[in-house]
């Protein structure tokens, strides 16, 4: 029989609501709370050998310790799969489920599964890296969630081939998988058109790339005191490309110290970008990353100061289209370092 370790929060363990969200992680033998529904769904194929219970506040406020402790707890049971939640629309619970499932997957190399409402912040954070079943927005959807999660969990535990998101019920994760629809494509097209014409909801089978928007931030109040960072998607790196950023890889970025650098020259910097003719950027890298003029502005007091590091990314054979995953990471660094504004140059 397959072994399952289940993760739930203080609420589903019947410890209490918000007032008890501070309880630290503990592990109990066997089933607690919603585990019962999973037990019924698993039949004699799998059993929940232990349940981790952790308060949502505790997890989110002591994330590193909680992760470490829980991984130790899970490890002892050597399960075939780790299930977290489902968390429905509870934001901190969702983030905890995603975080711990991700950590268990990375550290213990066992399959993991969680479930939550699609607008739960944990969904966007983790849906591309772990399987997250889409649930209703409240615990009233428990039965339905378990009905989808249990069979998928068994498949994952048995390392069987996982079908498409449409068949298995997980949130689309950017990985396209073939499957058979009930109706042929032309019929689906006619249905979709009728819905579109009649103002009824319809779902595209192929969502176009991300076209969402972020509202503009307020302007810089006093630019003469501001720290301004330079970021470029034009692939400017120190001469010799010390980090070996490949011209074809859009998944890497470089962070370079320009303390004391007044001007980028042919001898000191270059482009590692594969998406445009490098001749002009190599001749004078300021044409892409304008350190020379920014230093001038700094000296003249037009800006407070130029941030000590610049960030550079490369395209994947293209000059203007770029991936975004790494941007999330360095954006947080910039914020933490007190950068007031960014000039992003693109080719």
């Amino acid at each position, binding site marked *: 029989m397959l072994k399952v370790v289940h993760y739930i929060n203080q609420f589903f363990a019947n410890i209490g609501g918000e007032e008890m969200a501070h309880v630290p992680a503990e592990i109990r033998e066997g089933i607690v709370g919603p585990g019962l529904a999973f037990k019924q769904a698993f039949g004699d194929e799998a059993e929940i050998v232990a349940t981790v219970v952790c308060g949502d506040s505790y997890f989110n406020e002591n994330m590193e310790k909680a992760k470490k402790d829980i991984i130790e707890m899970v490890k002892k049971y050597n399960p075939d799969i780790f299930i977290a939640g489902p968390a429905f629309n509870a934001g901190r619970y969702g983030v905890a489920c995603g975080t711990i499932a991700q950590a268990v997957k990375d550290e213990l190399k066992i399959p993991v599964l969680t479930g939550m409402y699609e607008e739960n912040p944990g969904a966007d954070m983790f849906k591309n890296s772990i399987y997250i079943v889409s649930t209703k927005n409240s615990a009233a959807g428990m039965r339905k969630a378990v009905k989808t999660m249990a069979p998928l969990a068994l498949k994952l535990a048995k390392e069987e081939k996982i079908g498409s998101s449409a068949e298995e019920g997980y949130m689309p994760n950017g990985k*396209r998988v073939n499957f*058979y629809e009930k109706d042929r494509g*032309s*019929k689906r097209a006619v249905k979709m*058109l009728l819905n579109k014409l009649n103002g009824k909801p319809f779902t*595209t*089978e192929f969502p176009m790339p991300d076209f969402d928007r972020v509202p503009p931030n307020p302007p810089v109040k006093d630019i003469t005191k501001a720290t301004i960072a330079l970021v470029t998607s034009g692939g400017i790196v120190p001469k010799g490309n010390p980090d070996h950023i490949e011209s074809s890889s859009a998944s890497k970025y470089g962070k370079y110290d320009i303390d004391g650098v007044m001007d980028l020259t042919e001898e000191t910097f270059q482009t590692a970008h594969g998406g445009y003719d490098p001749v002009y950027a190599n001749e004078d890298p300021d044409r892409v990353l304008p350190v020379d003029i920014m230093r001038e502005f700094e000296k003249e007091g037009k800006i407070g100061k130029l941030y000590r590091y610049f960030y550079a990314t490369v395209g994947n054979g293209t000059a203007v289209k770029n991936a975004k995953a790494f941007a999330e990471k360095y954006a947080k660094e910039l914020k933490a370092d007190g950068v007031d504004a960014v000039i992003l140059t693109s080719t």
Partner: protein
Amino acid sequence: MEVNVLKLELGYIFIKDIQFAEQSKVENGTLYVNKEDVKALILEDQNFKSADVELARPGESIRIIPVKDVIEPRVKVEGPGGIFPGMISKVETVGSGKTNVLKGAAVVTTGKIVGFQEGIIDMKGPGAEYTPFSKLNNLVLKCEPIDGLKQHEHEKALRFAGYKVAEYLGNLAKSLTPDEVHTFETPSLTEGLKLYPDLPRVAYVLMLQSQGLMHDTYVYGVDAKKSLTTMIYPTEIMDGAIVSGNCVSACDKNTTYHHLNNPVIQDLFEQHGKTLNFVCVIISNENVYLADKERSSNWSAKLAELLGVDGVIVSEEGFGNPDTDLIMNCKKIESKGIKTVLITDEYAGRDGTSQSLADADAKANAVVSGGNANEVIELPPMDKVIGHPEVVDTIAGGFDGSLHDDGSITAELQVITGATNEMGFNRLSAR
């Protein structure tokens, strides 16, 4: 009233088996074929030095490779013109009267026009699931060209051999009583408005591959790349007004069989007069020249606007550059305030994580997918191979070592004829 409606009755004669016999005929659902007659018909064309004919039935352990075209035998019983007008019949407007169809039978042409010919049909096993042609009783033609025949002459000769044999088989059904009759009626624009004043008006934008040797489509005999976007009655297409000369990108090219049985046309007719008013088909090409793409898509949008339609379905053909035509058609038609749904397939890489299309736009918010053509599949060996199995290693979706010693094949789905058809012929999709 009569004069304002184009009406076609399609009479289906169901074919459940195909056999060689002394005399070609259709009897009790079996298509009997005189092999020598068919060979002689092919060899009328002096470009061929020899010909062979084989049978492939559903469930038989047979692999056909490389497939060039698949053609359904049809015959005009009543009404003007003949099947495949402008090709083997006179250029007369078809699409009215009565046409008989040998439903469940097809002519499959094979041959190596160039060294890298594509397209597999498996009659059995997992590969058969992906192609609609595994469900048909196929007459497979193998024609050997005379020495030194130029590729484009070879391509044309092979194409015409297919039409002629299909016509020959179709003629066997001319005086038969169909098992089932389907009636399709397209009223004139004004008539349609009167008949269905409250239903949304819908047109179908059918994109045709048109880029040169082995990439062409013909409309009443005209090479589609030399035509501006135009209109056609859906029933004209059922009589073979559009035929395929496209032999590349096996999984998402439209064979002549697809044109004759265009599923979008069938499904729009199914809703015609109930939930929508199916106005007509707009045919638009997919040329190499970018200015042609702009012009053709401008014209699609203009015609859709002129016809006063509320919505259109756009279907694509082929890989890569047609994504640009598809998105241009979508953007321009949507900007006229006309709703669109697009049918395409995807090249999302073997692991499914790459960008699926070569173009994108936020306006393309309603897309039907025919599946990821890069997904890797395993095809077990078949007892019999008709054609040239060795080409697998060199065709799109195949690779060095695709063809294993035991005859099994590991390759991308795109090797299979019709697998990710962009008219929405199949149930396959991707998420």
